[in-house]
């Protein structure tokens, strides 16, 4: 039972990271109508920058704090140079051009830091674990990731629901010309939103460093899972991103942890050893297929789309 | 009296909180030209969409040519003889005018799982299409890319595509919208020649066109049909004058 709880927390932690990614992607799509495959690259850039800054300053926290604005800056530069011209193009152009950006970023990272995976070491204060319940210790760092993620979600909620920027974001998602008519500099708004999305992806990436391998291509592994999140949750809605991220995070984590042992009680252990991992890695996609079959618009479709 | 060609009972459709059509009853007799007028936002286009089968009604039934078509979608209704034009011109812009019409002919000549013979060489598609195109006055423009036709010609092309499906009922959503005087006159003349040959439901803001073409008129306000009658009756109806004509014919 405690094991289930622990894995549940891991699922929550993964879900939080998926949410940070999905929120940026879905905001950018909802407002600028841009399918940005290179969103995963920003995640990767965040992870690498955090690692590099941590080594440079000798402090993990300082590295993280520097990496966040740096990733935002990278996002803004990419938006201004390459993506801005894509807003009016069709989805095919957007997909291909951002695919080109992915190739570029993955190679750039490989040139600067090499192709081998690098790992970030945590400061002693974060690398331990603490007693969550009697008999259950949980890694401090993963708990911190959950806390930061939840805080970011709350921040995003407040930003969208009760600030002027949030008002523009909500209005922009439903009516572009109206926002322009309000006299808002729409290009600056777009750059700002893109930067926000980049910062969220960077936050997810810099937190991922100490948990997962930091390597070229890491962005796309998570990106495709984020697509599943968005397909399940419904595109363009933050609420959908939250729900989708939690569902995918839980199902993926719990599936990997418990599918094989569960299967071995039904079929032979040998067969379970074979089918278990295969099924676990396919689980979220199968779930996506099921959701689509019954609800082609996802669980939380945005109205009027 | 014979059964109406299309009979609508209690048709409703809401978008969010807005009731676009609200328990609409409508009978269109075989052979008549029936205009639906009303201020912008009255739900006329929604009604056309529901008649064509593009929008599923929240409630109500639709009978067409003696059978219940409520659950049929647009392609199925088209094959029963229901054709439409759209409020915003809707053609295949990257095909020639003739291709546009030939596609409509093709859609009504059995299934299209033919993989070998070039469709553009099929006389049974091209000849009827050319005939229809000539009938609407676009015979000389057959090989022009539809995107390059003038606005008025594109609207004529839409009519041609509808006619090529050999419809029993033609749903026309503002066929003269955005046209100049001369183009409007040409379109009204074209529609006059179609009267009697085919039943027409006409949504239109241009009152000259409406009173020239319509045998009967229904007035729609806030999603409801508030009056139906001959042009004279509608013109004299006090409620209509107050609700609609009194506010000005264009909004």
């Amino acid at each position: 039972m405690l094991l289930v709880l622990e894995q549940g927390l891991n699922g929550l932690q993964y879900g939080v990271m998926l949410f940070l990614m999905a929120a940026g992607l879905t905001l950018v799509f909802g407002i600028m109508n841009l399918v940005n495959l290179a969103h995963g690259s920003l995640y990767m850039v965040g992870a690498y920058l955090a690692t590099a800054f941590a080594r440079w300053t000798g402090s993990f926290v300082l590295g993280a704090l520097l990496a966040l604005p740096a990733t935002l800056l990278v996002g803004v530069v990419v938006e201004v140079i390459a993506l801005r011209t894509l807003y009016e193009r069709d989805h095919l152009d957007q997909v291909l051009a951002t695919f080109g950006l992915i190739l570029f970023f993955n190679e750039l990272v490989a040139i600067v830091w090499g192709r081998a995976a690098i790992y970030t070491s945590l400061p002693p204060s974060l690398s331990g674990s603490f007693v969550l319940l009697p008999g259950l210790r949980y890694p401090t760092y993963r708990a911190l990731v959950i806390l930061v993620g939840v805080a970011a979600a709350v921040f995003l909620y407040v930003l969208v629901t009760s600030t002027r920027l949030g008002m523009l974001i909500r209005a922009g998602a439903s009516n572009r010309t109206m926002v322009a008519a309000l006299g808002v500099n729409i290009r600056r708004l777009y750059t700002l939103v893109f930067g926000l999305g980049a910062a969220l992806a960077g936050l997810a990436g810099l937190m991922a460093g100490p948990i997962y391998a930091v390597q070229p291509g890491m962005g796309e592994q998570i990106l495709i899972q984020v697509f599943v999140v968005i397909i399940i949750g419904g595109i363009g809605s933050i609420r959908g991103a939250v729900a989708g991220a939690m569902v995918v995070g839980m199902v993926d984590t719990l599936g990997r942890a418990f599918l094989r042992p569960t299967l071995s009680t039904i079929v032979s252990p040998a067969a379970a050893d074979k089918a278990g991992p295969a099924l676990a890695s396919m689980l979220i996609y199968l779930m996506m297929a099921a959701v689509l079959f019954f609800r082609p618009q996802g669980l939380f479709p945005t109205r009027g789309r | 009296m014979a059964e109406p060609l299309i009979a609508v009972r209690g048709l409703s459709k809401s978008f969010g909180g807005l009731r676009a059509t609200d328990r609409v009853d409508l009978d269109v007799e075989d052979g008549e030209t029936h205009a639906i007028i009303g201020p912008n936002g009255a739900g006329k286009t929604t009604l056309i969409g529901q008649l064509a089968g593009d929008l599923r009604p929240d409630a109500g039934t639709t009978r067409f040519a003696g059978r219940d078509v409520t659950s049929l979608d647009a392609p199925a209704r088209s094959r029963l003889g229901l054709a439409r034009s759209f409020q915003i011109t809707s053609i295949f812009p990257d095909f020639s005018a003739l291709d546009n019409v030939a596609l409509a002919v093709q859609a009504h000549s059995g299934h299209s799982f033919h993989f070998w013979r070039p469709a553009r060489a099929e006389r049974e598609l091209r000849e009827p299409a050319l005939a229809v195109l000539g009938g609407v006055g676009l015979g000389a423009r057959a090989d022009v890319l539809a995107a390059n036709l003038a606005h008025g010609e594109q609207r004529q092309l839409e009519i041609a595509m509808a006619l090529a499906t050999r419809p029993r009922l033609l749903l026309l959503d503002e066929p003269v919208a955005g046209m100049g005087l001369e183009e409007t006159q040409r379109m009204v003349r074209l529609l006059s020649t179609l009267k009697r040959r085919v039943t027409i439901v006409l949504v239109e803001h241009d009152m000259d066109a409406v009173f020239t073409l319509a045998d009967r008129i229904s007035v729609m306000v806030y999603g409801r049909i508030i009056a139906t009658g001959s042009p004279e009756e509608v013109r004299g109806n006090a409620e209509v004058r107050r609700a609609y004509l009194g506010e000005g014919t264009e909004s």
Partner: protein
Amino acid sequence: MAISRRAIVLAAGAVLLALVPPVAGLLNQPFYVDLFRRMMIFAIAALSLDLILGYGGMVSFGHAAYLGIGAYAVGIFAFYGVDNGFLQWSVAIAASAAAALVIGVISIRTSGVYFIMITLAFTQMLYYLGISLETYGGDNGMPLKTRSQFAGLVDLRNPSAFYYVVLALLLLFLLLGRRLVDARFGMVIRSARSNEPRARAIGFAPFRYKLAAFVLAGGACGLAGALLANQTEYLTPDFMHWTRSGEIMFMVILGGMRTLFGPVLGAVVLLGLEDVLSALTEHWQIILGPFLVVVVLFAKRGLFGLVSRDG
């Protein structure tokens, strides 16, 4: 004028491709037979994608899935000692078509960005499935024991014979594709791409036609996969990697969407470019990426659009 020019380009292309083996033999550069065969195999894949992407308007980011399924069909049969090519290739086509049917039924009801993400996600699922098939080499893949056998009819171990088989198949698919897109079937999917509400209003029910096109394209790409397994004599989940789908898509755009011949040109140019660049630097993708962006932004009509343009 455009037609005749197109025909000339086509004929010239076919002749040039047919000349590759003797010329490579003269120059004593057998490597080029290998390279051009690989190009033509990807040309078949890109051609099949053009059917649904260019003519059907379905932006599938998962075309590598069928490449993988076709390759695995050959590889798994060979693993168990079944090397009959007729059987292997038939199953490759059938299995890819079946997968396309399932993916298509679920994805074609959706549209736009959903379609892109769903096709991408399903292909990723198959990629992970490939990785977890430990029996067939898992992550690392496994060598193909022997190339497909055709009862002595043709020997694929002969590089030139294999080359001409691929060339014949490519020309066959070009012909079939041309007939198909101009026939009634093609007109339906093209009209649905052009204006789906209009297509529905005149009485077409596009879903089943789009699905049929999706299945046909999947089957054709499955055959390309079977060829690819024979080409590399190796089987790896990397055939299904999502970047492969992106590459095939880029071939279509680079060569010219909705032209059938364009994707062939795109495959030749992209793989040729990769070959040249990778000889220059290990980090050739840093050049290819921005090149891709530039092509999308400034040369949307593709190479074939440039050469076959009027006047």
